[in-house]
């Protein structure tokens, strides 16, 4: 039995080992959901960081280049696990900043921790509560568009089409709830009536019951707030039941999976998203176009054509924002070993120095009052045509 203990001690030593090596490097910790329910978001996020970690691996300091190390941890789509992972990055790796997390509940779960530890955090999740009220969220920024912004774009499009009665079909989780809250706020302002509110689970295999119920209220369109594969199940069920009403989806389906799974059933589906999906069709005058095309070339070159999705973009935006901020911090003469000081200055640099920064999701300008930094330019309506993303009319 002694051997069992030795094995255990060995594991403990190996586990503790990385903490022992302390060099003059700047560490950035990512907590993304590689497994679990949000993995279709987390995996492209991870992939993007892996793709860019070398290019963004050095910061020019006044005393020469300093290495930036990116540490990726799996949040397992569970707020507690993400919390522990973030804690370990902060306490053990002494990272200068964390990029956490993929989902809203996990991002909310670490708020107090990063606030108390005084570590800048960039969240990759949508909910607006993550950064508001800003006074209590000084250390937290985010890169994805908020649900509010997206719903704004969708409802405008609906009005334009003359749609007044909408059936809501959303996930029964934080993502679905976050969308519904905003939709309920914005819809009345635009004279849109929510005639049905149905929910379904992420793992649902059949949503036809909910659709049937909603159809009882004579909607003019469906708004589905979900991510694949659940989003596909709902979309497909609508078409399977022979319903030909317009279907709106959220930005949560802006990935290849949705198209692959959807096939003919998602033809004509409308969704709001960043410009990434339709980058080629943008006018050359668009400031984001070259950045988008370069990312696409790299990402699709590595992971295959049509694998583009906005989530990897959110992660890349965090890298876009962090690297210059780290360089500015180094320029102020702050040594990375001075973890506390470095974090504080880094936060200020992110807040003050991120101006008109052209990213994948949009063009970022952070201020002490705005930790989202995006405006309406960050989203366009997209329609699925010929199993591909096209700009919606």
């Amino acid at each position, binding site marked *: 039995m002694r051997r069992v203990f030795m094995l255990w001690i060995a594991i403990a030593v190996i586990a503790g080992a990385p903490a022992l090596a302390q060099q003059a490097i700047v560490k950035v910790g990512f907590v993304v959901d590689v497994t679990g329910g949000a993995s279709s978001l987390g995996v492209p996020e991870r992939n993007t960081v892996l793709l860019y970690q070398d290019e963004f691996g050095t910061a020019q300091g006044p005393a020469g280049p300093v290495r930036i190390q990116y540490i990726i941890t799996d949040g397992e789509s569970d707020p507690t696990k993400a919390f522990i992972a973030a804690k370990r990055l902060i306490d053990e790796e002494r990272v200068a900043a964390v990029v956490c997390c993929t989902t809203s509940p996990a991002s909310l779960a670490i708020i107090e921790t990063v606030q108390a530890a005084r570590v800048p955090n960039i969240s990759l999740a949508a909910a607006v509560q993550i950064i508001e009220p800003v006074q209590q969220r000084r250390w937290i920024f985010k890169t994805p568009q908020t649900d509010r912004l997206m719903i704004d774009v969708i409802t405008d499009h609906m009005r334009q089409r003359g749609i007044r009665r909408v059936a809501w079909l959303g996930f029964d989780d934080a993502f679905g709830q976050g969308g519904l809250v905003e939709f309920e706020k914005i819809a009345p302002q635009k004279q849109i009536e929510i005639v049905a509110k149905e929910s379904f689970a992420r*793992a649902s295999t059949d949503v036809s*019951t909910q659709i049937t119920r909603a159809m009882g209220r004579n909607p003019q369109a469906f708004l589905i707030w979900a991510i694949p594969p659940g989003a596909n*199940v709902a979309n497909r069920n609508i078409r399977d039941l022979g319903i030909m009403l317009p279907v709106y989806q959220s930005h949560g389906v802006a990935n290849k999976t949705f198209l692959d799974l959807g096939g003919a059933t998602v033809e004509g589906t409308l969704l709001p998203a960043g410009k990434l999906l339709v980058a080629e069709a943008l006018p050359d005058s668009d400031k984001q176009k070259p950045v988008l095309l370069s990312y696409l070339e790299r990402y699709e070159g590595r992971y295959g054509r049509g694998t583009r999705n906005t989530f990897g973009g959110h992660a890349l935006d965090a890298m876009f924002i962090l690297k210059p901020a780290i360089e500015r911090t180094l320029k102020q003469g702050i040594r990375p070993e001075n973890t506390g000081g470095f974090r504080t200055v880094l936060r200020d640099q992110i807040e003050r120095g991120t101006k008109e920064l052209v990213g994948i999701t949009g063009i970022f300008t952070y201020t002490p009052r705005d930790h989202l930094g995006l405006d309406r330019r960050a989203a366009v309506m997209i329609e699925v045509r010929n199993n591909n993303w096209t700009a919606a009319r």
Partner: protein
Amino acid sequence: MSLSQQIAQFIASGFVNGTIYALLGLGLVAIHSVTRVVNVAQGEFAAFGALLAASLLAQGFPLWPALAIAVAASAILGGGVHRVAIRPARQASALVLLIITIAVHLALKGILLLLWGTNPYSLPPFSAGPPVRIASAVLIRQSLWVIGITALVLIILYLFFTRTIRGKSLRACAVNPTAARLVGIRVERMGTLAWVIAGALGGLAGVLITPLALATYDMGLILGLKGFVGAVVVGMASYPWTVAACIAFGIVESLGAGLISSNYRDAIAFTALIVVLLWRALSTLRIGLIISEEAAQE
């Protein structure tokens, strides 16, 4: 849509879901009746079958051979799990065996994740065509395939269990393992056979549902759980009653979600389940303590 139309639709979609649960429930009963194991990893057989079929199809296999290979592979996987993980621990308590199947569930899930990643996969419907109207309910063609193939499987299982000596010996192991050994039936081998059957049924459920609902590496647990519900309600013993209970569970789930609230879909279904269980428990208690204690020791 009128209320009666809606109800018809709820029942129809509940029925189809229940049929899928039934395939998983049948596998659980086969395993439990012969080896006394509650198999948490049952749903993984479905996920494996579905993902394998999708990959084979992508490799250019025609649909039906791909499905057949996937189901056969799931069957082999089932037998393999019994040989590797269950048989070495057959003397262990029911609780330890349960934990072992949890471990198997995790390991299989990890392997599926490794091989197929987190992306969902889809299979084409087995035949193309517009949805079919039955009464006032709309059923897409794949639903008919689900029901038809399940019915066929039930008939095959029925014939196997009642017409062949192998099937009879399998039942004999479940009814009275000691007596089975005394007539020369190798109960351990029958255990493997039961797992093979369960694996095949799981794989079949997987390939049937994927054209409806897409396959992911982690689809198994929830599917298996619902099959478990149907199987346990009727005492983990009877094949036909398991099918009936699973279909009833699917319909209750669908009606509850449709008529009361889709938000409370699972809560309604599981509350109904607890009520059924209590009713069963209380009716046993009326006979007396000893009977229920003996029932618990099964």
